């Protein structure tokens, strides 16, 4: 008992907290990209269960791009393309042809897992070539704030892009025609149709954007976080992103906050192992999922889903 208390008090040293927050931010970025993407498609009425597969495809193509071109930016671009291509399948089958979104989503996830594993094996054999570490960018002044400075304001550049994206999507939702049309497509597609805007186009673009963002999220995992691609490396983060988007009611700022909370729980696993506390690694690895379940139990009632979510739109159908 006393040992645990001592360990606990010894745990929260300044360097531990800094490392925890920094790790949380790092871990939250792929979740944030992917969940912001999911928020876009959910608001337009497309439930993107295939997010996990799109992330994996993005992780693989992103890694390839970064590896071949020796540039993380090329990696993010190819990641976005890979995720977008996977999403295009969803667009054709679910949005355009009206097939069940959940079935197609599961198919995309399974296909994404299988194809990336096979391709990786075929291309590199048993080897996992590594990418170089990419430089971090410190924001002068802010990075010298105690504890928070180092952890929040000394990060890879893409982290700041991610935060900018959250603000941009929030602005897009509330202030632009696209945002209004997205919300209308998810709330009441027939009203959008009657207003003379194509529901299928709106949903198609939203789904493609989701795929591209999930691809960037995946590419972040392989290019920045791990520095290599390993099969199944997303480890359920695509599903976490779905939960995050739902809990945040599709609002980007809340997506960022929720992503950070889950990011902390992901990095806590790592941080706890580093402190050498004698808890089984299996138990610690369960933390993020325990956090998801806890969050669902507490907040699921207040999660808001658009009425037309996962309902294919067919003009004139009742």
């Amino acid at each position, binding site marked *: 008992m006393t040992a645990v208390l001592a360990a606990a008090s010894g745990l929260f040293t300044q360097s531990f907290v800094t490392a925890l927050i920094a790790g949380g931010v790092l871990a939250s970025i792929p979740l944030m990209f992917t969940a912001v993407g999911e928020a876009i498609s959910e608001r337009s009425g497309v439930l993107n269960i295939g997010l996990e597969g799109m992330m994996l495809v993005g992780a693989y193509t992103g890694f390839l791009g970064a590896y071949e071109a020796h540039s993380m930016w090329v990696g993010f671009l190819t990641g976005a393309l890979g995720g977008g291509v996977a999403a295009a399948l969803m667009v054709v089958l679910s949005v355009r042809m009206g097939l069940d979104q959940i079935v197609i989503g599961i198919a995309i996830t399974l296909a994404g897992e299988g194809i990336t594993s096979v391709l990786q094996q075929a291309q590199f054999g048993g080897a996992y070539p590594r990418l170089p570490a990419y430089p971090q960018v410190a924001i002068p002044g802010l990075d010298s704030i105690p504890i928070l400075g180092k952890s929040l304001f000394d990060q890879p550049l893409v982290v700041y892009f991610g935060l900018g994206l959250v603000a941009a999507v929030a602005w897009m939702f509330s*202030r*632009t*025609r*696209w945002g*209004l*049309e997205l*919300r*209308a497509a998810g*709330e*009441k597609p*027939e*009203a*959008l*149709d*009657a*207003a*003379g*805007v194509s529901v299928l186009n709106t949903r198609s673009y939203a789904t493609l954007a989701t795929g591209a963002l999930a691809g960037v999220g995946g590419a972040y995992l392989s290019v920045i976080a791990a520095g290599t691609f390993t099969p199944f490396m997303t480890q359920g983060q695509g599903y976490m992103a779905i939960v995050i988007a739902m809990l945040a009611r599709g609002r980007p700022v809340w997506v960022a906050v929720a992503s950070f909370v889950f990011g902390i729980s992901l990095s806590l696993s790592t941080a706890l192992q580093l402190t050498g506390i004698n808890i089984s690694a299996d138990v610690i690895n369960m933390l993020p999922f325990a956090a998801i379940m806890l969050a669902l139990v507490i907040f699921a009632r207040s999660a808001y889903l658009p009425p037309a979510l996962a309902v294919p739109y067919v*003009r*004139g159908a009742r």
Partner: protein
Amino acid sequence: MADGALGAGMSPTDPGAPAVELVGISKQFPGVLANDDVHLAVRRGEVHCLLGENGAGKSTLISILSGMQRPDSGTILIDGEPARIRSPRDALKMGIGTVYQHSTLIPALSVLENLMLGESRRIVLDRGRARARMAEIAKMLGVEVDPDARTGDLALGRQQQVEIISALWKGSRVLVLDEPTSMLTPQGVEELEKVLVQLKQQGTAIIFITHKLHEALAVSDRITILRRGRAIGELSSEEIRSSTPEQNRATIVRLMFGDATDIGDAPELQTRIEDVEDLGARRLTIAAGDEEEPILELKSVSAPGDGLEPGIVDVSMKVRAGQILGVAGIDGNGQRALAETIAGQRRARTGSVELFGTPVNRLGVSARQKLGLRYVTDDRLGEGIVRNLSVSINLLLKRIGEQPFWRRGRIDARKVNAAALELVAEYDIRTPGIATRAGTLSGGNIQKLLLARELSLGPKVVVFNKPTYGLDLRTTENVREVIRRLTAEGAGAVLISTDLDELLELAGEIVVLSRGRLVGTVQNGRDAAERIGALMIGDGDSPGAVA
């Protein structure tokens, strides 16, 4: 007006020339010729009424004009020029605005956001300009709506005003109103009529669709009657103005049924004529003595709502044997909560529900059914039937596992089918066979199936929730007859309806539900409609009122 009489032959600048003209419109759906060579000319500053029952082709014609459907043949002329209307956007651009029967507003968005939807191609929304345009149209209509209110929070009459503003957003050449009064209180209808007068003065051509004759006569300058996809007659403004309402009514009945070879079977004609006659003549007076014990009683019952739909608060009511108690109210004011609380599908939070003097709060649905309580749901497709099961199983859905249809857990198909055939015949359910999937039946036949199932076991109290909503005239009449017969045989009924005419026709006593509370009781009789309307509006938040 002389201009009107000269009509389409004049030059395009003639104010009496049609603002929009449909020429030879035909539209074929699988199995139905929805529009058959329809001609229709609508002039500026006129309310042109399309009269016809459900399935007569009104909605198809309108969806063609508004760009939702494309005709198989025929042309549309706007101010005498042929126009291509390929999408709702095209129609809006040409100044043809439509207010659909089912609201196209998005409840979760603000009024202004609803109006801005699809408004321009600019990426960044221009709220300032939208606000100004909204104020401009609202002023023209003489209405006042808060642009920042959440649309779903507005009263229905107010929402309809928003829809009209939205329809006029791109210009006001033609305004199409599809069954605009179906959800309104009598006061709301009055406000709508004022708005129509304003619009006529602006020179807007208005197409007003209804299946209610008295409404058509009250608002229109010209009436076209549709039947089985064809425009079978027209009453000009001169004819309407120069005749008494009775003469007009007679003319329309003659137009609708005059051609004896085209009438079809006689009972059909009978019910149709009845419907177009004044409804007041057939009100049923119920002689239920106060001394008689109620068979169903609610004592200060409160029950929770469900999502956006409100619950009920402190509701007390009594139903006696042989009585039809009407429940009036605008849709979404706690009707479902009330029905389900009585049926046992929803638990009362406080108060007590009593059947034959015994509290049944703790009893579930099936236990209440055994006591003789039945509920005919308004959610026919959702909780009413199992779409993918056969008509016969749906008819016996509530007796699964019971003798003699099931023996030792095994279905006796012969007994089930025999019983089903009997019910199909008795309730005149039009189905290809009893093995047909129930989901493929028409709305009217699904309702008959539900009635057959619920009423076949000697019910003592029946709750009907919107029993004729969306049904054609003939089935509506059948359903009302079933309700009358049921109570004549001594059962009690709670009739929840949003159709005031229906309540006035059937119920002796009508209670009014507003925001989950019973706000008053009205004995059926003279002025009942007005008094009920006043109660429906309730706390002064008058839908459609000019603030």
